[in-house]
């Protein structure tokens, strides 16, 4: 489209309502004051309204739409807190029925609409996407033309521009040098042209909104990148004291990381502690003070086969506590959970059933039990069956719940020189059952337990993007909300001195500057021609 050439000689893009250079209204019906928000610049959304592209652009550039998006997300998030999110319900229940049984019909509706998993639901992600789109379009629509207009603005402004400002006065005469000096002392940047002055302060603050929107967009992008493979690892690893385990998610071409748990420490507050005495006694049970894993980190060499621990190279020793993760490469290990006193080894004596005379002692590793134990002198014990977590199943047969040795039970075969064919016994915790005519007996002789620690393995390559977004956002809001863009124009006009002033916000502050200015100079105090509205 053709450009509009103003009488001052500047050519403006099509659709401009106030000349970028001198501010002259380019059409008759232009409201100067309301146009000042974006300097009367030609915003795409205000100029082009025909094609579908135009309409989509205009839709997303509208603040009304933006606010509706914000409010919709807000309301959805609020509804999402009425009942717990699916990540907070017990792990062993089916969400499809859980919400209905716990919360009735409302719970069912909640579940059906996807509020139970709001932040993973497609429509919430779509809303965030629309918000991002709206942010981009609204900012481009305004930011670019605004930037051009502010860059092009001249010192000398058109009379119509000045007399239509909110703050305006006409003085008989005024000392330009004095005005310049006073404005300078208020830290305005003053420019002069043909005996006219233009003073401005805080122009950078005008970019605040755009900067913070850029920050938000970067933030949102970072949050979405999580779904790309390789950016994000979130695993959990349980390690027994004394054991070395491979760390899931850390394997690459150069090998894999391994971790040894040297010691898990749980400290509690002393109930007799003077300082916290009354608070500690008002709760039942203990209050934890510290969860800590002392660990050693290893790395396997290139090409090591999994399970081959011989070739591990020690990287470092470390301490992991809540709030103090252990970091290596792009990974971090967080103290997440623990299990105290898991059974680890059990010892038995092989005895004569009647006299109690011992023929030797054996120790069973509950995770990797051996099948045969030779006690010498012809005495032997064999494990025929092992149930790490013993129960009787539906058919009343011995079975195991899982591989964790929470309730170990054994079927032993015991051999002596007198009974080389062996005697059988079923032995568990507080149980020792045999056929009745056994001469030998396995008697419990001690227990070794170990603690386990659970660590979250985390790699998040999106973190720096998110942090950057947050940082830019903070710069933007501060810049836009703690500063404002104030402008004062002084024009010598046929023997009079015209003064006009504008700010994008905080008129109160601008008026204080002007009060100071008119007190120190002969300028007539500027009159506020808008009484209420527009602050």
């Amino acid at each position: 489209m053709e450009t509009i050439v103003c009488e001052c000689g500047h050519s403006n893009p099509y659709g401009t309502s106030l000349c970028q250079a001198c501010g002259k209204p380019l059409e008759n019906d232009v409201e100067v004051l309301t146009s000042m928000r974006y300097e009367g610049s030609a915003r795409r959304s205000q100029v082009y309204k025909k094609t579908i592209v135009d309409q989509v652009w205009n839709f997303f550039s509208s603040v009304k739409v933006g606010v509706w998006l914000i409010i919709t997300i807000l309301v959805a998030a609020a509804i999402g807190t009425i009942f717990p999110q699916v990540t907070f319900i017990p792990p062993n229940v089916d969400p499809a029925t859980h919400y209905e049984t716990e919360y009735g019909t409302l719970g069912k509706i909640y579940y059906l609409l996807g509020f139970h998993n709001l932040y993973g639901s497609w429509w919430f992600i779509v809303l965030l996407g629309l918000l991002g789109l709206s942010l981009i379009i609204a900012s481009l629509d305004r930011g670019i033309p605004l930037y051009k207009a502010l860059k092009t603005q001249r010192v000398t402004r058109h009379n119509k521009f000045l007399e239509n400002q909110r703050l305006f006065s006409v003085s008989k005469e005024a000392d330009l040098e004095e005005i310049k000096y006073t404005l300078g002392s208020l830290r305005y940047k003053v420019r002069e042209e043909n005996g006219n002055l233009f003073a401005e302060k805080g122009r950078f603050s005008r970019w605040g909104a755009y900067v913070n929107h850029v920050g938000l967009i970067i933030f949102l992008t970072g949050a979405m990148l999580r779904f790309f493979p390789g950016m994000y690892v979130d695993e959990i690893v349980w390690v027994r004291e004394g054991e070395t385990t491979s760390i899931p998610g850390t394997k690459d071409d150069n090998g894999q990381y391994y971790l040894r748990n040297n010691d898990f420490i749980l400290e509690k507050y002393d109930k007799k502690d003077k300082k916290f005495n009354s608070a500690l006694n008002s709760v039942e049970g203990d209050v934890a003070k510290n969860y800590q894993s002392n660990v050693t980190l290893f790395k396997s060499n290139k090409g090591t086969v999994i399970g081959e621990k011989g070739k591990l190279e020690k990287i470092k020793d470390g301490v992991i506590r809540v709030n103090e993760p252990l970091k290596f490469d792009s990974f971090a290990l967080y103290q997440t959970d623990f299990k105290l006193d898991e059974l680890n080894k059990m010892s038995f004596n092989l005895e004569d059933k009647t006299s109690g005379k011992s023929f030797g002692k054996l120790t069973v590793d509950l995770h990797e039990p051996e099948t045969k134990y030779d006690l010498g002198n012809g005495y032997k014990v064999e494990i025929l069956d092992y149930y790490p977590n013993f129960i009787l199943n539906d058919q009343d047969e011995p079975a195991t719940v899982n591989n964790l040795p929470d309730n170990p039970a054994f079927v032993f075969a015991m051999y002596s020189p007198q009974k080389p064919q062996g005697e059988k016994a079923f032995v568990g915790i507080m149980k020792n059952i045999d056929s009745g005519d056994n001469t030998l007996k396995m008697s419990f002789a001690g227990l070794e337990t170990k603690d386990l620690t659970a660590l979250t393995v985390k790699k998040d390559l999106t973190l720096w993007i998110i942090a950057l977004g947050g940082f830019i956002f903070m710069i933007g809001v501060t810049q836009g909300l703690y500063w404002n863009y104030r402008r004062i124009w002084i024009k010598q006009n046929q023997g009079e001195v015209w003064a006009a002033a504008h700010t994008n916000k905080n008129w109160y502050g601008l008026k204080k500057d002007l009060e100071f200015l008119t007190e120190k100079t002969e300028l007539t105090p500027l009159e506020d021609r808008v009484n209420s509205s527009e602050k």
Partner: protein
Amino acid sequence: MSEISSTLLYSAFIIYLFSTLFFSMSLSDKKSSEAAYTKKWGKVGFITACAGFAAQLGYFITRWIASGHAPVSNLFEFTTFFGMMMVLGFIVLYSIYRTNGLGVFAMPVALLVIAYASMFPKDISPLIPALQSDWLKIHVTTAALGEGILAISFVSGLIYLIRTVDQTVSTKKTKWLEIIMYSLISVVGFVIISLAFKGAGYESSFEVMNKQNQPVKIVYELPAIAGPANGDHLDRGFGPLFNTPSWMQGVNASMKLNTFIWSLLSGFVLYGLLRLVLRKRISAALQTKVKNVNSELLDEISYRAVAIGFPIFSLGALIFAMIWAQQAWSRFWGWDPKEVWALITFLFYAAYLHLRLSRGWHGEKSAWLCVVGFWIITFNLIAVNLVLVGLHSYA
């Protein structure tokens, strides 16, 4: 040290009371709002407010020394701190605009917050491992500062509404204003009722089964209107009239609900008495007091409070919170209800800024929004702990 600390808090409370009194003396209902005594009492009120703030700062520091950690780790400490940040917010905005009317309302609201806070157990409590982090202190204090400043936008908006809403006829607006007054009075009711029953040494116990199916005892300090879900009353104390619904799952939810009902009831009685004495709406009675306050300035102050508070709130309640969460739980965001409500607060004030900037929502509309914003903040402080479960329900 902890005795010095509580004395200081108590003195701060009394000093704030005086400050409120001085500020109200500065209000003139005469024609000239610029009377000399207005300036004088305003100045005295402001200096007193600063003195009170200094005393409360003393409380904060001494309690920090006594406990060894920043005293923002339980509901009592946090809410007190929130009240203190409100006073700070007031001091900042008063220094810019010097409007005495603001003091007349800001100080009592801060007083209410502190009185409310002191009804919670004041024991110095130890920190569980997740809370042992410098980022936690930074997060909580900055968030509270942001909320304190945002609260001033509510105060200023409220005065604006009291001043401008037409009280000659009963409308939706006058009703909502009365509801706000009633809510504030209910906090007074809560404090009075709690003190009264505490003074009388009232206790009544229930036994309930906890999640691990072990019996635990719950001791009510107010007569039970709402009993615990599936609880057995162990003594012959009053009530309960009904049982708390089981979906309220916060720590001691039934007791909190019971207290809430008591606050509403006592607030109702107090409100009724006031109406009887005044023979008009409370906000109508207050209107005559504030008619000389410049309403445009009030609008400006409430906007400015948001403009100052919003970045601080974003930094404290979201960004610092994320840094801490990343460190403590390995993820910067977990959609915990308290987090979500901080996000809601953030989105709400963002919407406010856009409406004001681009859609010209000034004056009354903007003032109502500030009321809603404060409602969201207090909801997050109180109700989220009451009805919603989550990581923050320790408080």
